[in-house]
């Protein structure tokens, strides 16, 4: 797992305690709000009970006052004296006026038989019988009791729950009854709502007669109105839930923000730590691939900075050491070359000296066959001089090998054109080919031509009694391709294998020992290799493989 991933995971895990603590905190908030809501509900319930009791008291007081009001006294007297027709009383609006005066919601004036003479709350009832009013006045005069009544409404009737009281009023032999009351209606509910802040509903059984507002998730307290109905006080759980939800949302937001911050921090930290480490890893790879002296250019601090500095110092030291080793090796190589060259040059010098001394001696001795000796000696000197010239030419070629001019080159095509030179191979030699198509490299055609000629010539010369030469063009994966030349000659002796590509090392009669050295150098100049890899299956013979990077 990469360092960056590990850091991000650590950041995630570090915020988990917050997530675990959130439900606990929310439950604590819920408990606190519940307690507050229950307390408010109890207060509202007490206020509603007090308001209902007050409403009942007001009915009793209003009716008692009305019974002794001069207007009512006049009214009864007028009826008694027959000055006032019952119909006129119904039409006069007296009941409605008295009802408004006493702040009642309902008022009926009944005759002694219980017939409604006038109704303030439902004028259309005039003339009807109200036996309940008479009974109420007889049984519990002036005492308010719960009753269901109908009141006039915009669209006809509205049922209402009321506290009604009834009183008889007498003038001589004439008796009337006053039946009045106040309703637990919409206005009362609205007043109670203002007082308590709670939603108020008035129910007749299950039927809703008045309601201030519909609330969601109500928490209720019920106050019975006799056995007829009830007043319901409601407070909404909604606010508690909303607050809880808001807290949860805020906490979630905070958690997400913290998580985001932790992740961002982790990424930044990871980048600050892992970038130098990545750069060091890349540097190490570059170093391994030969880019000696590669420097890691990352600004860092602390241990990472020390590590980078140490790496860069190590890389610089390695390059210096390698440079020194190369120089030493080059010096040693040139010393070897000089030694070999001196040796090669010294070898012809001896026959030349001996031929010249022979000529001098023969000339002094006046030998008769001096001409013959002169011709042979001169021939020997010329041959050795020719040998010296060839040594110098090849060395010159080895030393002046130009930089390759790279161009796309199809290996099969190159191999085909080289093999065209061997259309008539020496007797006993058979040249086979296995040329894979599409193997393209970036190479100098002339130089590769030379390498291939060299390898084929060596292979043919290794089989004086004849045999089979196989030239192959093969792919070694996506990155490289190779040309292989295999023969069925004696192979490479183990003791010669290490010096095979050494300049001036040769096992051939008359060879300069520079052919394979030049071929190796060309391979290296192309970024490739040349090596003897032996035959497949360990058979007798040699196989050289020229490996080159493929063109991109």
């Amino acid at each position, binding site marked *: 797992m990469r360092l960056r991933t590990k850091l991000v995971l650590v950041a995630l895990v570090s915020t988990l305690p917050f997530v675990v603590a959130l439900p606990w905190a929310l439950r604590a908030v819920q408990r606190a709000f519940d307690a507050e809501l229950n307390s408010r509900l109890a207060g509202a319930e007490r206020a509603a009970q007090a308001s209902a009791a007050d409403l009942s008291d007001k009915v009793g007081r209003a009716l008692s006052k009305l019974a002794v009001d001069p207007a009512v006294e*006049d009214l009864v007297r007028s009826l008694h004296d027959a000055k*006032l*027709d*019952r*119909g*006129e009383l*119904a*039409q*006069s609006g007296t009941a409605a006026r008295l009802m408004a005066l006493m702040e009642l919601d309902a008022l009926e004036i009944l005759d002694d038989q219980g017939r409604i003479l006038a109704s303030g709350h*439902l*004028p*259309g*009832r*005039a*003339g*009807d019988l109200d036996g309940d009013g008479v009974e109420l006045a007889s049984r519990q005069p002036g005492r308010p009791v719960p009753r269901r009544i*109908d009141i*006039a409404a915009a*669209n*006809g*009737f509205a049922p209402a729950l009321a506290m009604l009281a009834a009183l008889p009023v007498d003038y001589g032999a004439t008796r009337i009854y006053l039946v009045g009351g106040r309703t637990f209606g919409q206005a009362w509910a609205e007043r109670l709502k203002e007082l308590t802040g709670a939603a108020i509903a008035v129910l007749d059984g299950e039927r809703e007669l008045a309601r201030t507002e519909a609330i969601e998730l109500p928490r209720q307290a019920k106050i019975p109105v006799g056995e007829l109905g009830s007043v319901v006080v409601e407070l909404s759980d909604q606010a508690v839930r909303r607050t809880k939800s808001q807290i949860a949302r805020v906490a979630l937001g905070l958690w997400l923000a913290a998580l985001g911050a932790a992740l961002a921090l982790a990424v930044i930290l990871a980048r600050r730590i892992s970038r130098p480490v990545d750069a060091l890893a890349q540097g190490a790879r570059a170093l391994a691939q030969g880019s000696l002296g590669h420097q890691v250019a990352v600004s860092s601090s602390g241990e990472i900075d020390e590590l980078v500095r140490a790496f860069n110092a190590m890389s610089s030291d390695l390059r210096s050491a390698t440079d020194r080793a190369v120089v030493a090796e080059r010096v040693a190589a040139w010393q070897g070359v000089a030694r070999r060259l001196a040796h090669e040059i010294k070898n012809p010098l001896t026959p030349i000296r001996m031929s010249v001394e022979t000529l001098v001696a023969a000339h002094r001795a006046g030998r008769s066959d001096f001409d013959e000796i002169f011709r042979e000696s001169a021939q020997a000197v010329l041959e050795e001089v020719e040998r010296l010239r060839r040594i110098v030419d090849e060395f010159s070629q080895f030393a002046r090998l130009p930089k390759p001019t790279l161009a796309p080159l199809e290996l099969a095509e190159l191999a085909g054109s080289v093999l065209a030179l061997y259309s008539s191979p020496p007797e006993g030699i058979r040249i086979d080919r296995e040329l894979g198509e599409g193997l393209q490299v970036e190479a100098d055609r002339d130089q590769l031509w030379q390498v291939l000629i060299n390898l084929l010539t060596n292979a043919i010369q290794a089989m004086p009694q004849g045999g089979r030469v196989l030239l192959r063009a093969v792919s070694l994966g996506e990155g490289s391709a190779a040309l292989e030349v295999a023969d069925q000659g004696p192979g490479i002796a183990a003791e010669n294998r290490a010096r095979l590509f050494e300049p001036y090392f040769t096992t051939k009669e008359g060879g300069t020992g520079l052919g394979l050295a030049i071929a190796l150098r060309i391979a290296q100049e192309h970024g490739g290799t040349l090596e003897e890899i032996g035959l497949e299956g360990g058979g007798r013979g040699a196989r050289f493989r020229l490996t080159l990077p493929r063109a991109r």
Partner: protein
Amino acid sequence: MKRLGLGLAILLIGASALAGMRARYGGELRVVVPALPQAQDPAQLTSSSDLLSARLLFGTLWTQAPDGALSPSLAAAVPEPEASGRFFRIRLRPGLRFQDGTPVTAREVISSLSRLADPKLESPYSALVLPLVGVSSSTGKIGGLKAGGELEVQASLAFAYPDWPRALAHPAASIVLDKGQRPLRGTGPFVLRVDGPSTVRYEAFPDCPTGRPFADSLSMTLGDSRSAGRQLALSAAELTTVSLAEKGGTEGPALQASYLALNPAKLGAQAAPVRQAFEAALEVGDLTRFFVRGPASPMYGLLPPALDPASSAPRARPASPQLPAGMELTLLVESGDENHRAVAERMQVKLHDLGLALKISRLPRPAFRKAVAGGAYELALVSVMAIPEAGMALAQLVSLALGREAAREELRTIGGGADAAARKALALARAEQLLPRLPLLPLYAQASRVLARPGVAGIGFDASGAPSLADGWLSDPPRVRAAGEKP
């Protein structure tokens, strides 16, 4: 209030002391009315205030006294029936002029009577001209009315209807000059000067064909029972037609009849049970007594008791029918009519007890009339100013409920009676037969009552129930203040 009522009673008693005094000209009659006249067009009057105003502004060919006697007015004489009661020759008095000076000729008489049949006006008094020949239901033109000269109108009836002249005494048959402008010009004793939202003012028309009114001017103001009583007691008004609790005053015939109209087209199969529910739930006597202000009689028959005395006799009520559960109907009421409002509320209560929800919809008069005429109602409380002739009154109702053709047939039947008594008997019999068939439930008939302060005399009523304010005079016309004098 009590003191005010007592004072008013004393004043009203004092009014009788004027009897026998000689009438005096001058002064203003200030009248407090429960509703201002809305239709200054005799063909469209539907309330007692409209009737009152029509009597002030317009004149009829002849007038009818409460005892039934006809007196020529614009006509030189009440015409006698010719050709077995199928032809009448109406001769106008010469030299008659409208209030703008235009001469009154046979052409104006013909056009005034033709207006009653004009479908655009939707007059509730079209029955008045239905006996005539060639009444076009599309144009309102009447072929049976022809000018026999500048001052003679020849009326040909499609069938015998000898009582036709009696019907034409109704203010709805006033002669008007309709040049397309409003207000219409008439020949009445007063000219309309101000038609405002709270006051209507009239001035005397000195060249009135029936004679100059005693008062120089007359004003009508809106008021309720309290303000009317107070104004009379304080002499701030001379007269009122507002219903007061106090007894006394002059009362006309109860001819403003109220009905519950049921629309069979809207009620469909429920029309019969709904009617039965109303009949079962409502006791018309109680309804009239407890919910109708002013002089009124319960009406158990189709015609008002003033035309059919048997109509005041209570009848057995049917049992409550079974109505569909949750049934809801709308009752149309003309806004401003307090009696109809109270009656509607009573109906609402009583029908509620039978499980029928009654929704009351109040509309101003134009919208109400349009809805009723167009049949856009389920139930409606309608008021009819009954023509004081039994046959015509019945034809009015039949025309309202069943259409003009049915009304014409009723008139044809009734007109066939041998004499006036026989024709009336026929009309009452038909009314009895039609009672269950017409989608009209009779409720009550109202009369106008005029209360006057002391010093006001001469106020009477004609047969149509309209008070004759033009005959009223003041024994103490207020002194004209000098310039700059403070009141």
